[in-house]
């Protein structure tokens, strides 16, 4: 409806439009057939599951500690002993990347949960109640959306102090409006349908209608958005840590690792190469899942 509103579609987006490939899916085919024909979703899904796996089983897949220093092994190049080399404290890069996946996923999970829950509440109330409540809530959401996302996150973290908790909360707050907007438009679209009117006519309460009737139809667009936001959360966490305002050292954040690598580029380029590849692949995985899910669930419902 307005430009600031549509700005949210903008940030980093990757996903400007429903993809025309979604039309290939045959009606009436089994869900599995649709999933397996969706190459984006399959490849992205494998990447995401792989990262989930290493995040979960970190201590089992590496013998080193992510924070223990070993000055005899400083700046070691990749070898059988240190797969991706070591850093300026002699810490094993591979191990720090594996534990870094934990950090990324923790932040992503908490941030997406906060964004999702906040967005659900604000969006549902704004869409269902309408009127002044809608106006006030959505102007607040517009105001948050009108900040460059990274900058708002920087401001919030800078105030609350850097830690895993504050970083996750800040990123979550930054993305509440995007969930709220999608939620609100889904609720608005559904609200006027006949079955909702019927439910109202037989005297069901507003809350019950929202939960039982309108709720389920909002799930797919919210899932698609959650996947995309997860990728953004990973990037923003890494960016904050890279800038030095995110997770304080010695936490193994991919962003911190890249920041530390800058000083030793001429000594050991390895330190910069592997964490960067890792972030890119992880983010690419989530973006592919987001694209794939959107095609799968409903190419038209998003945006």
């Amino acid at each position, binding site marked *: 409806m*307005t*430009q*600031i509103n*549509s*700005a949210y579609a*903008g*940030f*980093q*987006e*990757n*996903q*400007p*439009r429903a*993809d*025309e490939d979604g039309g290939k899916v045959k009606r009436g085919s089994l869900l599995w057939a649709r999933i397996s024909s969706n190459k984006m979703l399959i490849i992205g899904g494998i990447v995401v599951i792989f990262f989930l796996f290493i995040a979960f089983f970190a201590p089992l897949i590496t013998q080193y500690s992510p924070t223990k220093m070993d000055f005899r092994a400083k700046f070691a190049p990749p070898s059988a002993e240190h797969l991706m080399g070591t850093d300026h404290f002699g810490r094993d890069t591979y191990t720090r990347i594996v534990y870094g996946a934990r950090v990324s996923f923790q932040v992503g999970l908490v941030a997406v949960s906060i964004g999702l829950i906040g967005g659900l509440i604000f969006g549902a109330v704004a869409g269902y109640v309408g009127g002044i409540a809608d106006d006030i809530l959505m*102007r607040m959401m*517009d*105001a*948050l959306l*009108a*900040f*460059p*996302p*990274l*900058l*708002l996150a*920087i*401001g*919030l973290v*800078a*105030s*609350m*102090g850097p830690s895993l908790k504050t970083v996750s909360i800040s990123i979550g707050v930054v993305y509440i409006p995007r969930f709220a907007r999608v939620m609100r438009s889904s609720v608005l679209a559904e609200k006027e349908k006949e079955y909702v009117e019927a439910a109202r006519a037989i005297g069901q309460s507003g809350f019950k209608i929202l939960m039982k009737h309108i709720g389920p139809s909002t799930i797919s667009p919210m899932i698609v958005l959650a996947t995309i936001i997860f*990728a953004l959360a990973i*990037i923003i966490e*890494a*960016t904050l840590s*890279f*800038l*030095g*305002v995110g997770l304080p050292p010695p936490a193994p954040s991919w*962003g911190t690792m*890249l*920041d530390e*690598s*800058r000083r030793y*580029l*001429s000594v050991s*380029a390895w330190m*910069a*190469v592997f*964490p*960067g590849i890792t*972030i*890119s*692949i992880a*983010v*690419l995985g989530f*973006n*592919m899942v987001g694209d794939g899910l959107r095609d799968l669930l409903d190419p038209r419902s998003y945006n």
Partner: protein
Amino acid sequence: MLRYILNRLIYLFPVMVFMSIVVFLFIHLIPGDPVDYMLGIDATPEARQALRTELGLDKNIVVQYISWARKIMRGDLGTSIVTNRPVSTSILEKFPATMLLAVAATLISLIIAIIAGTIAAANKGTWKDLGLLLLSLLWVSIPSFWLGIMLILVFSLEFPIFPAIGHVSMFADFGKSMHHLTLPAVTLGATLAGAITRMTRSEMIEQLSKDYITTAWAKGLSRPVVIYKHALRNSLITVVTFTGLQLGTLLGGTVVVEKIFAWPGLGLLVIQSIFARDYPMVQGIVLFFAFTFVFVNLMVDISYTFLNPQIRLGKKG
């Protein structure tokens, strides 16, 4: 048209008030006493009281906000705790460097993306399209801070073609200025290029499926004329609008890129101010960025309405 602009301004007012409240609250989110936090524990009681009075922290929070907002409206963003100079002076000093970086990055990404997006759309479904699509997806997934480091590694350390750090004013030495600008602008523009490529592609595909294109083919017009003169021209409004709306990402990105390349702009200043606990400066810069973003969005919105004959004529008629 005038009425439309007026409506937009009326809508923007509450949004900007909410935005200023968010920025105002930054200082109140600091756990404990913000004055202790900013000055350190060994500051004298007089210095503390002075800062407390200056920031108005000894008053009711609503009163504090109103007097702060009044100052903002007069263009007074407060005084830096570190340098004791007006925040607005520092911002105006650093803004040109950031502006130069942002404009250069936008131009680079627009050129690359429009070419790539058009090629992809014109060859929809072929390996060219798929390759470009994958490349653009990869491109938006590479974080700019990593790309920047890799560019320094390759083009400054391995093959010393471009300088890794620093900034030269455009007016002092244009050639040198561009030389320093190259790596930061490419880094900043890369993510944007990926997003615009995807946008151009889908917009072009939509245009190419429309009736007037079928007519153009039927008239026997050549492929370049149909694709570039008809479809691309009509896609451009959307693409340029989309690019304008990406400014938020771009402004956020300057913080990262300025840190990597030691580019003396607002982004670098905001990070330095956070480390120096110079909160008036942090608030001022964040607010400045945010309002700039709002302003550019408004401009994009107005020019879009103005450029799009459908909207313009529809309103008149």
